[in-house]
């Protein structure tokens, strides 16, 4: 018997009954088969061949194959806390972060230490206007303190870290403490009041 000339239908014969053909394609093949003896013969050859191929395959033990499979590399889902490897990686990442933070801290500390030492050594004496303590920006709730002449300040004892207080006489120290006691501190006015007390009446305070 000669072959059918409809190649498309012949190509679909082995797929008949499988998921590879949708319902409409299957129906078209069935209609064609009803009128084509050559394709019916070919389909018979296909089905015989399929049966022979199936019979050729030994049975396999699915359980044994599954048991031999490697363990999956678990993917860590946030909050699941599973996966030893991922956990190790997480620990490694954390320790790396800690090391980086510690290194940064060391660098900052080593750079900052000479500056800090200089700041403490050069701390201004009491009475010297310290603009860094006053709020002068537009958002300041109070007016900036008036300018204070610097001349008398040079002679005034300071509160420098290095020996400033120890240079004061007993009277001066008492006066200073009294002034300090009298001041109920409000941040914006405290330095000014203190400065005025010292600068404007240096004689009285001594």
């Amino acid at each position, binding site marked *: *018997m000669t*072959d059918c000339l409809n190649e498309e239908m*012949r*190509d679909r014969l*082995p*797929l008949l009954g*499988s*998921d*590879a053909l949708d319902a409409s394609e299957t129906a078209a093949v069935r209609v064609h088969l009803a009128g084509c003896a050559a394709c019916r*013969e*070919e389909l*018979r*050859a*296909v*089905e*015989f*061949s*399929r*049966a*022979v*191929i*199936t*019979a*050729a*395959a*030994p*049975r*396999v*033990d*699915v*359980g*044994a*194959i*599954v*048991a*031999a*499979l*490697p363990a*999956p*590399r*678990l*993917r860590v*889902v946030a909050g699941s806390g*599973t996966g030893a490897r991922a956990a190790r990686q997480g620990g490694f990442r954390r320790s790396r972060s800690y090391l980086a933070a510690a290194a940064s801290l060391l660098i900052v500390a080593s750079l900052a230490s000479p500056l800090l030492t200089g700041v403490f050594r050069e701390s201004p004496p009491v009475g010297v206007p310290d603009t860094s303590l006053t709020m002068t920006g537009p958002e300041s709730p109070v007016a900036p303190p008036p300018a204070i002449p610097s001349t008398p300040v040079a002679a005034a004892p300071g509160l420098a870290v290095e020996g400033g207080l120890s240079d004061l006489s007993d009277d001066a120290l008492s006066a200073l403490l009294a002034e300090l006691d009298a001041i109920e501190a409000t941040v914006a006015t405290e330095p000014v009041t203190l400065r005025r007390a010292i600068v404007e009446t240096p004689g009285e305070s001594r």
Partner: protein
Amino acid sequence: MGEPSAKTVDATDAELIARWQRGDQRAAAALVERHSRPLARFAAILGEREQVEELVQDTFVRAFGALDTFRSDSSLRTWLFTICKRLLLDRRRSERRRKDQVELDEGHAVVEYDALDGMVGEETAQRVRDGMERLSPLQREVFTLRVSEGMPYGEIAEVVGSTEGACRVHYHNAIKSIKEYLSDD
């Protein structure tokens, strides 16, 4: 290992892979259940006789060991068949090197068949076998994948390392040859 549930039976390969990667062993069992028999058929038709199960197991072990690298550009089935064929060819090469057994002519693979389930008479079955054994190795691979697995030519081409058009020609030559054996009264 429990019986695959309806959920695993209906799931796609990609869904089962994702579940196995999350630690679900039943998903692995479902994948093996789904693909092991077709792989065994393929291996047997290609001439593997005594170590079909070992070959199929090696195929799955290789595949599951590399699933992280599997990209769904091709289907898992195609990938498994490709691995299976590569392993089979590697075995044959090493067997030839050892020369401790009779060299198997790829063109005349001897396939041992179990008893057919009554659908095909013994005489008819023998004719089909004769016809298949005289196919070229490539024709036999293409024919098996098309007839037994219902693979599209594009997938077959990936597995056998050929083109879609060439696979179509191989299939038609193979079925013509089988028909001739069947009608050889």
